[in-house]
């Protein structure tokens, strides 16, 4: 019989206000095997832990139940406390009476009854807990960063500077991401490319960084410290080693129809292209869907003009398999599609554009060479209307429920830049709220209003109606004046909501990293572990985790890098000892368990078994505990009940069921 101690935490008033902790203690003492029970205001505190230590010593406890917050919070704390005091850490069980009880129930009697039942279940389980010992696994000292935007580049640089090798996988032909598309950045108005491209060059020339552009992650297996990843390097049709980046192929290419993705489809590019002048690597790719040679077999002009002989139409996709210790997701964002927002006439009028399109128009390398002009007739707009929160903070299913965070600031930036360069152009901004939390952000916005005379109108726009004279009639409302506004504009700019990149779901599934209802990757703890995914060894960098501006992205990228470095600095990782184990007397070697094991952890060997005095050779399942992750699929599949999961054994779970249904 175990000697069990039950420790009930008040968690200040978090638990004690709803659960009668004294009653739980009283009831615990009635349970079989419970030789000690006490309550304490903060069990996790040093003083609380010393109470546990004392009880272990004085009452010779060999099982502990802590009734407290979720095991996701403090299971590790109490296990460590037990271990320090000579008790196997796996003889500790947590009864979650905070998240699963006191915080969701109001009635004290009901909550106390439930807390008692949860305590009983934990006591019943701990009776059957076996001391377990964590194994060790080696760490592959190499990291993978998925996404080569500013988040991925910064993470890679920081990891590489610490001396570990990093691979960046970027699906586009060049690294740089969204930031490379921006013209200026708020609130300093420095040129985006001028601060980004040195980092791109640094990453490309770093001895510890390998960049795979035009590549995608195809398959991920393994676990923290030991991931195996297949990377598909898509056929570029250009030999990376031979190409000198002279660009003559792009000039000569006769296929000029495809929309230029980098310029948000506002102009066209050739079939062989580099997305932008500072692209890294400065090696073009051939768009197979547009290339005449690849489609019809005739043409081959680029090959003729390429003096380096770098064009290779026979190139095929290549799969690279590599081992990694850690994976960082930095897949970034895109703007939402506006097909559900017909009222803004986007797509109907060329002069209704998104902010990212305006960014390209304002950029000297953009479709209009940096001249602010209407895409319909090339005239300079004299009246520009900005509409905020298009798809952000949306209560229906057309848009997103969250605030995209960056729009208020970039709109202030756009408005300011336009007023600065074209003083005779009027700018009006329709907004719900102006949100400017951030260093020098509010000052920046006030400058736009006070120094640059940008007209801010609190209210939303119901409709943008294209007129026969080519102008746009904006139907808005001024909430402060309580009146409707009809405004004639030459150009309308929509602050379109941002959403995680469309590939993120696929990547999250491969990594078994969880994702929220808005497709942002979930962090391990929203406040305390914001750059880690709940899946060990997977880290988050940039907007894939939630909307962020550039400084926040860079900060998070650095934080993710530190977590990766901390992991790669270890030679060995402790493995989860809650692995499956076959009872050799019951196993009949039927092989069903190996069929369901996702890790290939089960093999079979012939072993001599002593079954009630009869010695015979039997085929028996053997679990490789270094590979087993402890899901338990095999335990249920096993027809003879031989396979069981340590820490979550059949008997333990049944004991919990019995305690709850008692």
């Amino acid at each position, binding site marked *: 019989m175990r000697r069990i101690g039950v420790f009930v935490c008040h968690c200040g008033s978090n638990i004690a206000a709803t659960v009668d902790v004294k009653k739980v203690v009283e009831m615990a003492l009635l349970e079989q095997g419970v030789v000690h029970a006490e309550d304490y205001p903060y069990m996790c505190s040093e003083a609380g832990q010393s109470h546990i230590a004392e009880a272990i010593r004085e009452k010779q406890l060999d099982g502990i139940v802590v009734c407290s917050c*979720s*095991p*996701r919070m403090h299971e590790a704390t109490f296990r460590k406390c037990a271990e320090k005091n000579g008790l196997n850490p796996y003889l500790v069980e947590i009864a*979650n009476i*905070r*998240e*699963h*009880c006191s*915080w*969701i*129930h*109001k*009635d004290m009697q*009901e*909550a106390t*009854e*439930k807390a008692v*039942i*949860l305590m009983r*279940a934990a006591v019943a389980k701990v009776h059957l807990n076996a001391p377990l010992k964590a194994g060790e696994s080696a760490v592959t000292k190499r990291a993978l960063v998925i996404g080569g935007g500013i988040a991925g580049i910064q993470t890679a640089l920081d990891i590489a500077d610490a001396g570990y090798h990093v691979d960046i996988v970027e699906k586009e032909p060049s690294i740089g991401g969204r930031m490379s598309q921006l013209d200026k950045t708020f609130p300093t108005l420095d040129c985006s490319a001028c601060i980004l491209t040195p980092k791109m060059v640094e990453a490309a020339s770093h001895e510890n960084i390998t960049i795979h552009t035009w590549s995608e992650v195809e398959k991920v297996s393994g676990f923290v410290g030991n991931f195996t990843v297949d990377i598909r390097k898509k056929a570029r049709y250009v030999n990376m080693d031979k190409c000198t980046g002279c660009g003559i192929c792009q000039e000569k290419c006769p296929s000029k129809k495809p929309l230029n993705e980098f310029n948000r489809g506002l102009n066209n590019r050739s079939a062989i292209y580099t997305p932008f002048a500072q692209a890294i690597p400065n090696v073009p790719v051939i768009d197979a869907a547009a290339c005449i040679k690849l489609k019809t077999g005739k043409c081959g002009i680029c090959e003729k003009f390429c003096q380096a002989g770098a064009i290779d139409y026979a190139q095929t996709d290549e799969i690279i398999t590599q081992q990694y210790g850690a994976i960082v997701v930095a897949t970034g964002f895109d703007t939402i599609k506006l097909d559900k927002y017909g009222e803004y006439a986007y797509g109907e009028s060329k002069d209704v554009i998104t902010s990212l399109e305006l960014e390209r128009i304002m950029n000297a390398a953009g479709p209009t060479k940096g001249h602010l002009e209407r895409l319909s007739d090339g005239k300079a707009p004299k009246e520009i209307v900005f509409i905020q929160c298009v798809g952000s903070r949306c209560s229906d299913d057309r848009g997103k429920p969250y605030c995209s965070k960056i729009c208020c600031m970039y709109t202030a930036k756009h408005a300011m830049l336009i007023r600065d360069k074209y003083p005779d152009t009027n700018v009006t901004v329709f907004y719900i709220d102006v949100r400017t939390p951030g260093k020098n952000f509010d000052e920046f916005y006030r400058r736009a209003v006070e120094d640059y005379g940008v007209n801010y109108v609190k209210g939303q726009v119901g409709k943008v109606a294209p007129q026969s004279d080519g102008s746009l009639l904006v139907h808005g409302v001024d909430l402060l004046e309580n009146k409707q506004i009809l405004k004639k504009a030459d150009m309308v700019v929509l602050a379109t909501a941002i959403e995680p990149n469309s590939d993120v779901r696929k990547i*999250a*599934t491969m990594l*078994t990293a*969880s*994702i*929220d*209802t808005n497709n942002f990757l*979930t962090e391990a703890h929203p406040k305390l572990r914001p750059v880690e995914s*709940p*899946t060990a060894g997977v880290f988050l960098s940039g907007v894939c985790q939630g909307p962020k501006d550039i400084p926040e992205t860079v900060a998070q990228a650095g934080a993710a890098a530190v977590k990766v470095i901390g992991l790669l600095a270890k030679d060995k990782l402790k493995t989860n000892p*809650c692995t499956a184990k076959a009872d050799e007397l019951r196993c009949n070697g039927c092989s069903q368990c190996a069929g*369901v094991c*996702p890790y290939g952890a089960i093999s079979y060997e012939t072993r001599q078994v002593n079954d009630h005095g009869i010695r015979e050779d039997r085929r028996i399942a053997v679990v490789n505990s270094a590979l087993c*992750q*402890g*899901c*338990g*699929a095999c*335990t*249920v*599949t096993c027809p003879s009940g031989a396979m069981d*999961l340590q820490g*979550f054994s*059949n008997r333990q*779970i*049944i004991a*919990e*069921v*019995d305690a*709850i*249904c*008692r």
Partner: protein
Amino acid sequence: MPVTENWKPTIVAFCCNWCSYAGADLAGSSRLAYPADVKIIKVPCSCRVNPMFILRAFEKGADGVILCGCHPGDCHYSTGNYYARRRMTLLFSMLDYLGVEDGRTRVEWVSAAEGVKFSETMNSFVEKVRGLGPNVRLGDLRCRN
């Protein structure tokens, strides 16, 4: 057993460690109430839930059993919830045949970010089981008070 107005069902909820248990934690920290009748048992994965555990719960007097796991495709162990889904489909149809009504058993996918869904699921499940009244089938009469 007579159904009184104060009758409270016993409900066992098996929650996988990675998604649904965390979803329940989020429901808790967001203070999204659901009835205290629900008692959660943590399992590493929904595929750890042996149909035997569910039969045991009904035998010992549970009035409803719910199994929550990661959304299909999002299983921490890649494929566990698919096994769980198949097993439960078979088990629940057998239980229905034995007279344990369909409403007493449920499989629901709740991610770590879906505190709201966890709370809503538990509210609707408890309401359903309350409507069905005490479970008399499979129950071991020796376990009754």
